[in-house]
């Protein structure tokens, strides 16, 4: 019983990274129709940026949680303006290749600049230690990660459901052409939405910094799991991304506990089962064949 509680917290903590990053991936896919392969690299950049800012200017995790996503927002908007935008009218495969190439470039640049062994990161001591719950010591930092992720997901959900911006993004996600014909300047939202998605990946990276090895390659496997998350949750579905993220985190944790060697395979088994039962994913909508 105690172990189950621990596994659950560990699964939700790992799921937090997936949920935040998948949320960004889903928003970008929804509005731009771009499968952003570079999302893992953006997650990596978030962690690297946090480590570098701590090392050079002594920026704490608290500040980095705000500053790094803002930097990533700007970076993402630049990437959209300078690169992604030009390929949007073409087949989505072109942007898949572009972001794949961008991944290789970013990973190599980080390797060149910061080496392959990774960067150190120390979190604030307030997040050290454990909380006793039902006789189990639960790491404060894992609970903190889960809390931040839930808050951000809630915030994004409110933004999407309670504001005009969210309404426009939902409409543009569902039928961009129609939204345009109804007077919405969809193009105006493309750049900030891409930046926002990238910022979410960066935030996941910052949260991962004290917890994971900060290396140029840290996003390489992450992005594969992330694709599984969005397929399970439903492509372009915001709720699906969040639920899928936490679900995959839990499957990973309980897989590690009860079928250690198959922990990663289980995620893809789950994906296969979901796709067979509901091809559009748990929260995806079947696309009408026009």
């Amino acid at each position, binding site marked *: 019983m105690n172990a189950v509680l621990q596994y659950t917290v560990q699964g939700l903590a790992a799921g937090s990274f997936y949920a935040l990053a998948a949320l960004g991936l889903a928003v970008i896919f929804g509005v731009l129709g771009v499968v952003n392969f570079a999302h893992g690299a953006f997650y990596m950049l978030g962690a690297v940026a946090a480590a570098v800012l701590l090392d050079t200017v002594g920026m704490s995790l608290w500040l980095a949680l705000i500053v790094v996503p803002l930097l990533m927002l700007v970076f993402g908007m630049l990437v959209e303006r300078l690169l992604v935008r030009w390929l949007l009218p073409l087949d989505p495969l072109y942007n898949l290749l572009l972001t794949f190439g961008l991944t290789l470039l970013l990973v190599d640049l980080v390797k060149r600049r910061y080496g392959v062994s990774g960067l150190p990161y120390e979190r604030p001591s307030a997040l050290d230690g454990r909380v006793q719950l039902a006789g189990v010591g639960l790491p404060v930092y894992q609970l903190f990660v889960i809390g931040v992720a839930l808050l951000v997901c809630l915030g994004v959900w409110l933004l999407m459901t309670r504001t*005009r911006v969210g309404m426009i993004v939902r*409409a543009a*996600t569902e*039928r961009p052409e*129609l939204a*345009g014909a*109804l*007077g*919405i300047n969809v193009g105006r939202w493309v750049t900030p939405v891409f930046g926002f998605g990238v910022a979410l990946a960066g935030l996941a990276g910052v949260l991962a910094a004290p917890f994971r090895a900060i290396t140029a390659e840290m996003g390489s496997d992450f992005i594969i799991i992330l694709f599984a998350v969005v397929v399970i949750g439903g492509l372009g579905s915001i709720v699906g991304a969040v639920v899928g993220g936490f679900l995959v985190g839990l499957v990973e944790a309980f897989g590690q506990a009860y079928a250690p060697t198959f922990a990663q395979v289980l995620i893809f088994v789950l994906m296969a089962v979901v796709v067979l039962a509901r091809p559009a994913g748990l929260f995806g909508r079947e696309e009408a064949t026009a």
Partner: protein
Amino acid sequence: MLEVENLSAWYGEAQALREATLSVAEGEVVTLVGRNGAGKTTLVRCLMGLHKHLTGSVRLDGRDITTLPAHKRARAGLGWVQDDRGIFANLSVEENLLLPPRVSESAWTLEQVYDAFPALGSRRRAGGTTLSGGEQQMLAVARVLRTGARVLLLDEPSEGLAPVIVAQIGDIVRTAKQSGIGVLLIEQNVRFAATVADRHYLLAQGRLVESLDNDEFVERQDELLEHLGI
């Protein structure tokens, strides 16, 4: 107020429209009749700026809008109701109504909409696509009326609907006409077209073959039906 001149359009090498010239005046209801594949929907997509491979010109209130992007045309006063009604599933009924921006003083308020379409008022929180087909059609039309669009482009609004609903749509079109809105109605339902329109264009193989006023249209209805193969 809407004037189209020598409009030709292509899909790759294939020409879908051949030098179409037509106009819709203020408070006028004009139909575009033709069989499937005649180029009706292409014409509307050209007018909305969604199909860009074209020559010729489109003017709205004397202003050349041929090269404007879709969202600017909507803001200039073109209101499009597409043939599948275009209701957003991720938006509630009320959000569907509120999504497009107001473009003129004649825009309906939400109260006006709910007065005219009580079914929408009672389901305002429901998901857009949970409505019945007829209700979705009402919502689509109400949505463009709420923006205050000056010209409505209605793409087959009667398609697949029960006669009683079609009659209601006819009422809305007449109401719009009375308030000075111009309506371009794409129809295959010739009988319905005859009940609401002032003039008719016949479109065949991408070409406007005839322009008739409603009396002539009613008189030659059977001949036209045969000619068009509808």
